[in-house]
Structure formats: C-alpha cells, structure tokens
C-alpha cells in the first residue's frame, strides 16, 4: 500500500443537531490532530470515527482490499477492520485494575493468540515482550497487577493493547494526558515510527497544542460542533491554532 493511499473516508458526520456535517478522509501514514476548546465536538468526531454513537445519516468507510470500502457502525466492526480507539480516562475506562499486565495488554487481541478459545500464553507473552521493547515499558513482571505500574507505563500498556490488534487507523483520545515527559517523548517517537514505517494513520485528539505542533501533519479545529478550520503543517503555529479555537483570525501571543 502506498503511503498516501486513502484508507478511511467519512461523510456527513453531524456532531450536534443543526450543525454543518463533517466530511473528509484519512491517508495511510498520516497524523491528524484534533483541537478545540473542551466540549466543542472534537471528541464526538473521534468517537464517530471509532464507531460509537454515530450520528444519523453519516457514514464512515474503511478500505478493505484494493479499491473496496466497507461501512461500519459499531466499534467491534471498526476494530475488525483495523480501526482502534484509545479512551481518554485511563483509570475509569482503560485499565482493569485487579488484572495482570499481560491481561491488560491482551484482552481485546486474545483471538489472535488462541486456538478454539484456548489461549496460547506463550505467544501472547512474546507479543507483549516485543511491544515492551518498542515502547520501553517497565513493569516488575507480566503477571504483576497493572495498578503496580506508573501512570505512564499503564498508558504504554494500553497503547500496546491497541498495537496487538494490528491496526491500520489509530484513534487516540488525549494519549499523553497525565503522563511524564519522558514517556511523552517516547510516545511521539512511537507515533512517528508507526506512521512512517507501518503506514498507520493516526488521529490524535490533544488538549496540548504544543504536542499537536510537534507531531501532527494537519490539525482540524473544532468549534461549536463544526470543523471550522484545517491547518496544514507549514501554516501551523501556536497563535494560529489558538485563534482558530476561539474563532478568530489571529491573536498576538
């Protein structure tokens, strides 16, 4: 697959009643940022791409093989097609607090590491070991409870969880929220590598504009449940993005 092939198309996603719908596409290897003031529709947009709560009439299509595209309207179907989602609140919707690191990593990807419903723990552990290297995750042992890990390492385990699904599109809801600086830099490096080497398209919703400036190719600005602006890499500056978030042309910082 060439790195600029369109892998996802979305049409007429209405983020709130009466607002202008959003349409567009994602290319392989693209890193798209989503920004906006809290609660201006960027999260709804991300969730719609992930297959949750899709608005009436809108469609999201993923390239299956060759020139074929398939619609999906649930997060299960999305994941089957390689579209995966990282939730925002790690503690309440991400981790399984009493379960081990291995289980926290492996729950959604179990079918890949099993035969007739019986898990092959060996292969699962190999996979985790590989992602542990890639993301430099630190944990006492694979059987230690996830809650024994630092927030950053928990987040890395959750990212590894998504990678084990062999995604083509990763939808990340504020992935570096509450994470230390080193982990953050590791994440940026990983995102770039995933986009460049594996052709994964990433959509990153972030509450930190600097982060978007650092890693995203484009940023879509959301205001009042509409996508008001799309800024390309060359034109991306802090003041430009903030101005767009507030619905103004430019602000002096």
């Amino acid at each position: 697959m060439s790195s600029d092939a369109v892998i996802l198309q979305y049409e007429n996603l209405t983020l709130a009643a009466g607002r202008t719908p959003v349409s567009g596409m994602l290319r392989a290897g693209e890193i798209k940022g989503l920004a906006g003031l809290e609660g201006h529709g960027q999260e709804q947009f991300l969730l719609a791409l992930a297959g949750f709560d899709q608005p009436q009439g809108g469609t999201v299509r993923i390239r299956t093989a060759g020139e074929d595209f398939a619609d999906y309207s649930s997060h299960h179907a999305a994941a089957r097609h390689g579209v995966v989602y990282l939730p925002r609140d790690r503690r309440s919707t991400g981790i399984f607090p009493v379960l081990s690191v291995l289980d926290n990593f492996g729950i959604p990807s179990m079918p890949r590491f099993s035969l007739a419903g019986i898990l092959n723990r060996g292969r699962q552990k190999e996979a985790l070991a590989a992602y542990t290297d890639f993301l430099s995750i630190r944990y006492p042992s694979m059987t230690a409870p996830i809650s024994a890990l630092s927030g950053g390492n928990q987040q890395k385990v959750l990212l590894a969880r998504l990678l084990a699904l062999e995604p083509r599109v990763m939808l990340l809801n504020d992935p570096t929220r509450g994470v230390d600086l080193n982990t953050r830099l590791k994440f940026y490096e990983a995102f770039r590598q995933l986009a460049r080497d594996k052709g994964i398209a990433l959509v990153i919703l972030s509450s930190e504009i600097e982060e978007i400036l650092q890693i995203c190719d484009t940023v879509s600005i959301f205001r009042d449940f509409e996508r008001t602006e799309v800024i390309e890499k060359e034109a991306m500056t802090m003041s430009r993005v903030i101005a767009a978030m507030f619905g103004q042309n430019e602000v002096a910082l």
Partner: protein
Amino acid sequence: MNMILKHLTGNRALVAYAGVLLVFAVGAMLIPGFASLFSIRAMLILASLLAIAALGQTLVMILGGIDLSIPFVIGFANVVFASLYGGGMPAWVALAIVLAGAAMIGAFSGAISAALSIHPLIVTLGVGTVVQALVQIWTRGLPTGSAPPFINEFVSLGGSVGPLPFPWLIPFTLALTIATIFVLRRTIYGRKLYALGSNPKAAELALIRPVVMWAMTFSLSSIFAALAGIFLLGFTGSSSAGVGTPYLFQTVAAVVIGGTALIGGRGGFIGTIAGAIVLVELRTVLIGIGLSEAMVQSALGVLILLLVAAYGRDQHIRNLI
C-alpha cells in the same frame, strides 16, 4: 495497595481450606463417628452437590452479578427430569431437554440484566419465581417420577469407583473443578469474565460484548444448577419443586467464604470448593451436637457471619476513591 489485595484474594481461598481442616478437627473431637469413612463420604457427596450448584454462582459473582434463580432452576430440573423420565422418555433425551431448558432460562436472565442494566437480583428473582410457578402448574403441585438407576448409582452413599469407596460424583466434581480452573485461567471466556467483572466500561471498549458474556454466564449458572437438581433427584429418590430452597443461601455463602467478592473481577472456583466443604461440615457438626433443624439454621447464620467477618469484608469507602 492492590498488590496486597491480590495477595489477600489468593490467601482467602487458603484461609477457607484452613477452615476446612479446623472444622474437621473440631467435629472429630466433638462428635463420635464424625471422622468415620461413612461420615466423610456423606459430607463429600453433599459438598459436591453444593459445589456443582455453586459453580455458576461463582462465575456470576466474578462478573459482579448474583443469581437468585439457582434454587428455582434446581427445582425445575429435579421435577421436570423426573417427570420426563418417569413418562418413559430415555434418560439422555430428558437430560438434554432439561439442560437446554435451563440454559435458556439463564441466558434470558443474563441477557436482559445486561441489555437493560437491571440488577440481576431482581431479574433472577422474577424469572425464578415464574419458572417455579410454571413447574408447579405443569405438575399440579404433585411431582411424580424418579431418577434412572445410573444416576442413583452415580451419587449413591454406597457407590464405588472400582476399589475406591465413593461414588462417581466425587471424581466427576474433581474433574469439573480442574476444567473450571482451566477455563477461568486459560481461555478467552475466562479472561473476559474477569475483565468484565473488574471494569465493565473498560471491558466494553476492549471489545468485550457484555450482553453475550452475561447471557453465557447466567446460562452456565442455570445449567450447573440443573445438573445439581438432577443429581439431587438421584440422591433423595423422589422429586420435589422445593428441593433447591436451601441452595439459595448456601451457594452465595460458599462462594463468599471461598473468597470471591461480590463486586466482581476477583476470586475463583478453588475457594468455592472449600466454602462448600466448610458449610457441609458445619451443618454436620451442628446436627451432630444435637441441635434441632431450626437451631442449626440459626447457628449456621451466626457461624457464617463470623467467618465472613474474619476475612471477607469490603473495603472502607475512603479506599474506593
């Protein structure tokens, strides 16, 4: 904090096994004949029946639910199997029909509890009541029939497995235990069960379908309750819709004494086995020291409170924040 918790959960089952030994020692001291082969065999059979009935309750509680329909399903299986077999149906066909019926009852309860977010306590209570009433209407309150000889033999006090002095029920329960532990630890279903019990919201995002899981798990609960009901038929000899009544409390107690918390995500079947044995031992001791049936019930209530207070307590609210 959670390391300690995990450690304690592991230990709770151990504590329960310590309880098994302790109660046995007390019984052997207080009651002549308590440690005899006959008495041990009887207790093992009763504990096996309870453990089978409590298997499903364990799964349901790992999920964070509770199944109050177990006694009603036991009664359903007991009466319907006896009637079908008594009416001339081959035992295996009757068995299949009863287990399939039970599976449907459980699947219904589980599915609507999860799909409509209704507390399973209410749903299983309502469904159980309906099931029991239907059975009673069907038999007009006068159940008939009996168990086929091979089931009598399977659970009989005088049964034997080759040279070993106990019926096939004992090795069957042992095999069932090993299978359950394997399923819980090494299968997709088992791990999903713990994940869903541990954090339902995260589980849904991690591609677990709660309605399917709940339907499957309650279905299993009903199937094992039905199995216990059929074995009870072989044990008691005649059918009765009320035969399951004591199992409502006893399954819950066995699971909790075994260290599975009702909040979900923790525990396992090894502990439940210990819980079942402790309960049967306690009952035997209380009857053995000459208490009336009514006082046995009261004393059992007190003892269970003491046991659970010793190691089965919840966390303080301040630790939940």
